[in-house]
């Protein structure tokens, strides 16, 4: 599975997104589910799935699906 697909799955599970959500264009606080609580759940889920630890700045920077994807690439998570 590609990195994009895996991250897609993490978003859907962690934020409990309804079917048909345009996941790849999501932004923090752009939908009700991705509030501060959702953000913390999402961070924990990403850390689990990709076996990484995000630092303070990364957690605060992760303002969209695309940013999260770029960040994981930057952390050399395998495609």
């Amino acid at each position, binding site marked *: 599975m590609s990195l994009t697909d895996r991250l897609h799955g993490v978003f859907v599970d962690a934020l409990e997104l309804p079917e048909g959500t345009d996941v790849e264009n999501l932004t*923090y*606080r*752009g*939908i*009700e589910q*991705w*509030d*501060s*609580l959702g*953000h*913390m*759940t999402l*961070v*924990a889920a990403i850390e689990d799935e990709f076996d990484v630890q*995000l*630092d*303070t700045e990364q*957690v*605060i*920077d992760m*303002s969209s699906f695309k940013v999260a994807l770029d960040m994981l690439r930057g952390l050399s998570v395998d495609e």
Partner: protein
Amino acid sequence: MNLVAPSARLIDAATGAVLGGAGLAAEVGRHAAAYAGFPPGVVFARSGTSVPAVLRYAGALRAQRPVALLDPALDPAVLADFVRRFSPAVVVGLAEGGAGADTGERPGDYRAVDDEVLGPVWVRERACADQPHPDLAVLLATSGSTGDPKFVRLSRAAVESNAAAIARVLAIGPDEVAPTSLPLYYSFGMSVLNSHLAAGATVLVVDGGVLAREFWQAVSAYGATSLAGVPHNYEMLHRIRWSPAKYPTLRTLTQAGGKLRDETILAFHARIAETGGRFHVMWGCTEAAPRMSTLPADALPDRVGSVGPALPGGSFTVLGPDGAETDRPGVVGELVYRGPNVMMGYAESAADLTRGDEQGGVLRTGDLGCLDADGFVWLRGRLKRFGKVFGIRVNLHDIEELARDQGPVVAVSGPDRVVVFVEGGTDDGARALAGRLAERLRLHRSGFDVRTVERLPQLPNGKIDYRSLEALV
């Protein structure tokens, strides 16, 4: 009522625009004047975290109109119910947005107007027959014990005296810069705004909260000096290993809105003390406009767990088990607060808004606790938060304290048992906790139903949503 002292400033972090001095006074005056064209009565202000929302609020107060600060994400059915019950003269902030924001349909007795100053509003066709009491200034929604949303009625004197007392006890002067880390419709967020504007300080209006990049960019760019948060905010910052060292202008951290774990308090106290700053634990409730007590920063770490003495002008007593009020140290009972900031009463309808003060400056808090020899308050949980296990009454607060090392926990009363929700726990951990609770409380373990949840549900103000958890059991 003029909330805004001459040296006060508003900075809009989104645009960089600064409003202060004569410019700010003129804007507040312009907003106040804009209300003159509407029928007399209450203003409903859907208020996001924005400069226009602050100006609509300050303008309504200047125009001597009571103003209800409302969550823009309020369910449209709830907004419609509020409008029906309270018949406001005007609903402003219709364009206030954010995820989940929806006004629903315009109510029947109202017409839509696009006001030059206030933006899109709903105006009542005729004045409501029930006109608000002249002392009334601010209305804040609270769910109350029955779950029916109602308003807390705050007088002008209560709002002003509380803003002044907070400014005094936190030493808020004109050099302070407070970012809007909490919603304005939440009593703690409103008090940050009120106390800074009244003290002639700067309010940095920035949306997004403490997990948003824009928030911290604004803190750095405009040299924010303080941060206000509820336990949930500090737990999140703790979890992501946030440090105030990166923001050298931050000198004051304040926490209210519920019990923060002692270890988290001490961690933040230690971190901010390193850079010469201070951490204040505070206690309040919407019914007290909202602040009642503040723990002086130098009382940490020794008095961790206390919420401090009453604000200047206020005092506490304890309603002891014998039904008599006392200020004797060590007596545990319901805490009673007296002060000029106590609400006038509740309101469930427009008729209730006509009423004057019904409290006489006395507020039974519904919280259990005691005072120490210096008058510091030590809270012991909610008065009515008891569960029964095999007919034995147990204090749910005590159970939460016993389980707190497992992470955020909530205990609620189930049918002859206590259900404990643990955030992010494991099934093994849950079983072990049930065993431990049974042992400590000397009750059979089948009386403790420990469940793990991914996250505890919260209300928009960041407090735990007990009602939705109770619905699960």
